């Protein structure tokens, strides 16, 4: 061994980004982003200020430079890639699942494994990066993914795989505050894109496959001070607790996680959270009752975290039918409504003032698990209730629509839904609960054959399907609607497509090299419209499309635009 004096001084380790072309600084464009601007997000369509583009969750942009007459000339303007480095959790599952946020020419986007980037939205140049160190052994049901960031007051907010919410300096990417809001030893994690409401950042927990008690949390966006926590499973004695067994601790392991971003009605002052499955997913025998507030829309007062109303889409779920997909806010006949495509295969239109049902119709061809009548009465038909007895049902646990988002165009008055027509077989296998161990209560095989998908357009006034663009495989990515009379949708096989919003006609497509499981957004810079498309096939493919488990992975963010001249 060498003596100490002989050692060469290797210095001090440096951040990896110093060994790259990263600029290190972004313009101070988010300093002026505040609650008032986010309230009116659609009035500045050159930006995509918040997760869904606006609080209403419509994923609709008034931009129309790219339209039905010229979309066939759409071409990539730039591509951003990061790839995977070293040994990280869920190494085979990493992919984009984010919706890029854009403020005055700067894009903020989160990736897998703790990555956050600020990019020049016109060129794709990397301005800064942040990397949260994520434990290799964190419990992840559904891949090493993250659904994006929120921005306000000069900060970028992101959740981490180990259930932190971190505020970054939007100019430098340096952490300003960091709060832990979940217990990784209990199987909790975080993948949700935060939402800014008033002076708070709102987040929710993941971990519904591990027998946790789901919750949403609010923190002061300036300091990280906790404002409230709202549990989505009531403790004994609380309203709704009578929907759980009165003996035992089923409620304490009940699930109902909020792992997608809520929508928000500022006039009603209500957040619409979307809750996940009950636990154990398929073994209802250990949790008799409706199991509130699992599989619900839950209207919450953002000022104190109190539950004001709810509607349960699948009472006593034994099919893993999370209702975490969005509740889109829209107006119809002077009424404040919400539209929701549930995993269970039904499209629900609610009066969002009290979460009462207006209309429910099926939106996928095959539904065998049960039936919901026009008044909302649920009749289960096929479910795994006998130990060791395989039961096949449609839709499978990924649902007739996964978490990926639908869109609503106020211009056409139609909803556009990515549809998954795929079944599964579940065999009940009761197991003992242990913290951090998956708590499903069944073995599950999702179908490899006899599958289909579509982008389907629905009239919320009648429930009528107006058109359907068919795909051989389920459609597993969020759609985007624009005033250019276009609906954009990515396919599992890599094509990114533009459809005519009125007819469903395919107008353009581009092969991105890997499948889509993210949420595209749109913006302009100096009058030029871009469509930002995070791509990459990963996450829990075994759950939503195992027939594509061997498809090419990747994780590229592609910005499309019309040729400049």
């Amino acid at each position: 061994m060498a003596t100490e004096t002989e050692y060469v001084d290797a210095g001090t380790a440096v951040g990896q980004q110093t060994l790259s072309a990263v600029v290190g600084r972004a313009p101070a464009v988010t300093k002026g982003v505040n609650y008032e601007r986010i309230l009116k997000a659609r009035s500045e369509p050159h930006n995509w200020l918040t997760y869904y583009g606006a609080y209403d969750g419509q994923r609709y942009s008034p931009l129309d430079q790219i339209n039905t007459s010229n979309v066939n000339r759409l071409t990539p303007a730039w591509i951003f890639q990061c790839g995977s480095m070293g040994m990280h959790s869920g190494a085979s599952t990493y992919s984009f699942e984010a919706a890029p946020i854009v403020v005055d020419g700067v894009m903020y986007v989160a990736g897998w494994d703790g990555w956050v980037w600020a990019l020049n939205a016109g060129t794709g140049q990397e301005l800064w990066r942040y990397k949260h160190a994520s434990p290799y052994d964190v419990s992840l049901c559904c891949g090493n993914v993250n659904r994006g960031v929120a921005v306000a007051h000069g900060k970028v907010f992101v959740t981490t795989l180990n259930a932190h919410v971190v505020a970054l300096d939007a100019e430098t990417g340096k952490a300003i505050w960091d709060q832990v809001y979940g217990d990784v030893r209990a199987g909790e994690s975080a993948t949700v894109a935060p939402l800014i409401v008033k002076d708070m950042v709102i987040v929710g927990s993941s971990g519904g496959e591990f027998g946790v008690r789901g919750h949403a949390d609010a923190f002061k966006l300036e300091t990280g001070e906790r404002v409230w926590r709202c549990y989505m499973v009531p403790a004994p004695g609380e309203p709704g607790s009578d929907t759980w067994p009165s003996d035992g601790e089923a409620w304490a392991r009940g699930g109902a996680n909020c792992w997608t971003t809520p929508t928000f009605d500022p006039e009603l002052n209500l957040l619409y959270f979307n809750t996940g499955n009950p636990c154990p997913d398929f073994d209802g025998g250990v949790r008799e009752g409706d199991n509130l507030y699992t599989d619900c829309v839950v209207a919450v007062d953002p000022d104190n975290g109190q539950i004001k109303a709810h509607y349960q889409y699948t009472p006593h779920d034994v099919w893993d039918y999370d209702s975490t997909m969005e509740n889109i806010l829209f107006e119809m006949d002077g009424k404040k409504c919400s539209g929701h495509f549930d995993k269970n295969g039904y499209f629900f239109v609610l009066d969002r003032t009290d979460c009462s049902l207006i209309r429910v119709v099926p939106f996928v061809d095959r539904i065998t698990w049960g039936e919901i009548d026009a008044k909302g009465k649920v009749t289960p038909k096929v479910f795994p209730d006998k130990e060791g007895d395989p039961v096949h049902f449609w839709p499978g646990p990924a649902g007739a629509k996964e978490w990926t988002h639908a869109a609503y165009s106020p211009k056409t008055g139609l909803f556009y839904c990515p549809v998954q027509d795929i079944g599964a077989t579940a065999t009940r296998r009761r197991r003992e609960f242990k913290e951090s161990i998956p708590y499903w209560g069944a073995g599950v095989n999702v179908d490899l054959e006899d599958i289909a998908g579509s982008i389907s357009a629905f009239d919320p006034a009648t429930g009528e399907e107006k058109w359907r663009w068919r795909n051989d495989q389920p459609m597993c990515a969020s759609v985007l609607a624009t005033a250019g009379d276009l609906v954009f949708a990515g396919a599992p096989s890599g094509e990114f497509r533009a459809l005519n919003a009125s007819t469903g006609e395919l107008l353009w497509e581009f092969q991105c090299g890997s499948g889509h499981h993210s949420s595209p957004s749109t913006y302009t810079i100096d009058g030029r419209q871009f469509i930002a498309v995070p791509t990459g096939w990963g996450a829990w493919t075994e759950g939503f499309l195992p027939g594509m488990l061997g498809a090419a992975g990747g994780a590229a963010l592609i910005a499309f635009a019309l040729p400049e001249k």
Partner: protein
Amino acid sequence: MPELDKQNGTTLGRLLGRGSVGHAEEESGGRMRATIRIPVDELVFEPRVLVLPHGGDLELELINDDMNTHCAVLPSNGDSQFIWLVNHSRGKAHLNLDGPGYYWYASRTGNDEGRGLTGAIVVSGEVPDEAKLDRPPQPRP
């Protein structure tokens, strides 16, 4: 099987995750210190598993006693930390790791990371009480 824990024994390199365990020292303020060495012709970090008593700041000394050049890409909140370690060199890294779980690090040059120069940092402990679920204590494996 000793032949699995050496270079060019049964395997070409050596299996990951095996070998010695070391513990970081904790200073009075909670900051932690540890030293990791790369011995001659072993292609391992020693200790191969470094255990921290809790999350927080770690000052790590890295010593390459080997006759070849290596490096380390280390996990840390904010950005991964990189250090180049030529033969007989000594450097340090400041890391921040914030919670329970374990983290791999490696020398990325050549295929060091596949041949054995991949180590683990284990962060012990629990999350803060305010982050825990409000429920009775639950059974663990």
